[in-house]
């Protein structure tokens, strides 16, 4: 898939995955690359940006297997942004489908 196209939707994917539960970095990355083919390393810069823009917060929590892990948690701002993105995404998909499906006037 086109890399620029992927980058745009990746943000929505991360925010959506964090909507239900807090997750640590590897968990997020593994979950995304299960369904989207991507260099996993590029998700970390995105996570950092989301944190800088206050869409997510991080905290450390103990793990049963080794050192504590950095967990990502959606902020209120992130939750609102997720809603906006989702609406925009749905509108975009609907619009594109109309065009590529040939049903546009």
């Amino acid at each position, binding site marked *: 898939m086109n890399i620029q196209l992927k980058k745009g939707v990746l943000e929505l994917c991360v925010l959506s995955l964090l909507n239900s539960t807090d997750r640590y970095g590897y968990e997020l990355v593994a979950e995304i690359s299960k369904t989207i083919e991507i260099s996993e390393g590029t998700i970390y810069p995105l996570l950092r940006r989301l944190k800088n823009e206050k869409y997510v917060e991080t905290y450390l929590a103990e793990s049963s297997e*080794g050192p504590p892990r950095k967990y990502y948690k959606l902020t209120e701002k992130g939750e609102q942004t997720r809603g906006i993105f989702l609406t925009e995404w749905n509108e975009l998909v609907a619009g594109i489908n109309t065009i590529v499906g040939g049903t546009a006037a």
Partner: protein
Amino acid sequence: MKKQEFMKKLSAHLKKMPKLDRDDILADFEEYFDAAQAENENEETLCERLGDPKKIAKEYYMQKYIEEANMQKSFKSMSRAFAASASLGIVNFFYVLCVVIVGYIVISALYIAICSIGLGAIAAFIAGIIFGGMYGPLALWLVLFGSVALLALSVLGFIGIMKLAKLFRKANMRFLNMTRKGIIRRKNYE
């Protein structure tokens, strides 16, 4: 590629990052390896999954530059809006020059006035303690009570002026934003 090699390369490519940021980023990747290896993934597969360290570092740099540019842009657009609002027309020019400058002078004058009243009240209180006894107890209590009341009033006045100044600043900001939007709109029509 093994983990150690990956980390070394990533660290080298991030050397222009502030040390705190670099350490933070490297810790994220350390954690990635730790967590993945706890699930029995092998190092070489993981390095492949992560991708090129140089590309990853580039992402971080790009992000940093964009953040810096955004900060500059908002500052620039702010000062530009101020300058533009003065050159937009005589009404705005009048507003910027007179209202802003006169407004700040008035607010400063109010501050000075209220501070003098407060200081005067304190002086009256001290004078009352020292000299009030000479004119009998009634005069003493009158002066003390009066000066304390005056001081309390001036404190209230001070708070009021602070509120007024804040309101004035807000109004200015709102005007500025309105003007800025006006500029954008004008551009669209042109």
